[in-house]
């Protein structure tokens, strides 16, 4: 990880009224890296993702994109930079078919009218390179299973050729086989050289695909761990704050006294 990160947050803070949702949060995502963002409920994961996606502008700190400081104030800003976000509720139109959903809002046109043939062709290519299996690209989203919808939503985020993809709990409501499909897809995103931020509560998923785990606790960084060299207990301890116990407090006090 010697190159500059695609996306870096430096000391980002965010307040909502009396609530300090994020305090001095640091986060780095490199190209071809899957960063799992974990933390308990209310730890600030969603808020952090929304600051990157431009839903909530940050109050303090800096967001760097490929080494340059940038302003992300609106969702469009994030999209222009190359950040694609797949939210938990997917936001697909049930009545439209897969092709139409993939290209919703950026339809391909030919002489001013929709170019269905080119869209279908590109949709098939995209789904094939991601090894996504769905019955047909011309059936309505309503006919797809939860996992298939999830992979379609992720595939849709790739239409705009992003550099960073944020996945908000992509496996939360899925069965075993479907979860495996989504995790396969996350690995394929990494192979394509994208930076992936994966929010998940599921440690098994995180350990399966992530390179780095960033832990948030009460709106602050509580450690960043390389997945390979870290035990699950360490991560869970960081999430729950179990590292803060009598022993650590004594250690901290003695360190202070030594100053």
């Amino acid at each position, binding site marked *: 990880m010697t190159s500059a990160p695609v996306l870096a947050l430096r000391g980002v803070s965010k307040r909502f009224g009396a609530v300090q949702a994020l305090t001095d949060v640091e986060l780095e995502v490199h190209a071809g890296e899957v960063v799992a963002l974990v933390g308990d409920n209310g730890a600030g994961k969603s808020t952090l993702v929304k600051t990157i996606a431009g839903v909530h502008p940050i109050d303090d700190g800096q967001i760097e994109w490929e080494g340059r400081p940038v302003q992300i104030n609106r969702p469009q800003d994030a999209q222009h930079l190359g950040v694609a976000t797949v939210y938990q509720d*997917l936001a697909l*139109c*049930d*009545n439209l078919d897969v092709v139409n959903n993939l290209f*919703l*809002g950026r339809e391909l046109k030919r002489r001013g*009218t929709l170019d269905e043939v*080119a869209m279908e062709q590109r949709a098939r290519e995209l789904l094939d390179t991601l090894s996504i299996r769905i*019955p047909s690209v011309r059936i*309505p989203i309503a006919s797809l299973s939860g996992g298939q919808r999830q992979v379609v939503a992720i595939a849709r985020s790739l239409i705009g050729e992003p550099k960073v993809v944020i996945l908000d709990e992509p496996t939360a409501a899925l069965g075993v086989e479907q979860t495996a499909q989504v995790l396969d897809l996350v690995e394929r995103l990494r192979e394509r050289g994208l930076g992936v931020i994966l929010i998940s509560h599921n440690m098994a998923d995180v350990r399966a695909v992530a390179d780095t785990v960033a832990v948030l606790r009460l709106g602050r960084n509580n450690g960043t761990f390389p997945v390979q060299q870290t035990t699950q207990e360490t991560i869970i301890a960081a999430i729950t704050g179990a590292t803060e116990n009598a022993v650590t407090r004594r250690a901290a006090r003695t360190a202070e006294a030594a100053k």
Partner: protein
Amino acid sequence: MSNDTKTTPPPASSPAVDPRLLQRESGLSGYVSEFVRKVRGGDLGSLPVVVGLIVIWAVFSLNDGKYFAASTAEFIAYYMVGIGLLAVGLVFVLLLGEIDLSVGAVSGLAAAVYAVLSVNEHVDPWLSVLLTLLTGAAIGALHGFIFAKIGVPAFVVTLAGFLAWQGVMLWLLGSTGTINLDDKGLNHFLSGNSYFLGGDISGGYVLAVLAVASLLFGSLSEQARRRKAGVPFRPTSEIVLRAVLLAIGAFGAAYVLNQASGVPNALVIFLALLIVCDFVLRRTSYGRKIFAVGGNIEASRRAGISVPAIRISVYAISGTFAALGGLAIAGTTNAAGQAGADPNNLMMAIAAAVIGGTSLFGGRGRVWSALLGMLVIESINAGLYMLGLTLDIQYMITGGVLLAAVVVDSLSRRTQKSSGRA
């Protein structure tokens, strides 16, 4: 699908087809089995309308031997245009999953505006038509603005419009209550004795040939493009079947109308507008956005679609078609009168759109449902008129048909849900 595997040799990494998937057989048998599967799954399409039409025609023919005549067809073809135009605007609104209760009042007001401009103020008739349509569009845009930007439910906004615009119409018409129209401008073409090519026998057949030829040309050129691009395409047998069905309908209608006086110009205008609207809804990104907003508002917003802009424009379209429908309705009597805003017109227009297969729940429908629904409604009206049944019975039967259509819509939606298609 089977065609695709032939044209593009699957690369090594190509995913195996999921064995649970229903493979569509190629050729005509595949088309038929697909149709049966769709109907079983609750995707009824135009089937209820076709069945309904056959039942209606059979019942009235048994009751009155004169029902099955060219003059009845002429009556239906001419009188369905006015309310049919209201229904076209309503289809756009229904696709958003909303409702526009003001179309009847706006149509009455539009006729009054046109009458005052062209007759009382001696404005050029075509300019009057333009100003009338702009009035309709502005009224619709106002409804849309209050709904989309202020957040008042569309139902309430248009209900208020229903009352208010009727009031404006009465005020415009003044004490006489009726203004007779001159046989000029658009009104000339909308009146009851204006026929395509002057009612010449070739008129209907020219239109039928045009329809079939453009369908064949469009389908075959699309098939060629899709084949070239290596994506699944319609088999030739299916295209031919569709063309044959359209030809039977078009030439049959032309023959029957020619037995009477010919194809009314009002009907030609109606059909041309239907084709334009169908094109806009299915082939332009604007139409795609309407379907998207009707399917999932949040998804549309995240895809960068301006939901308020779509809503306002759709209500403006509805207002424009209401104004046009008002002109057509006024054309049938050559007068703009207080009856122009008959609330019955509103119910008929909603009924037509729903009977024709446009869902009240948004995101599903076609503009052709305005045509199909009006065929049903006017077939009933013509029959009741010939049987000499009075208005009370007519209202009851039309109400019953509307209810039946909504029930079919709700039931088919439920079936679609349980079979995973909605």
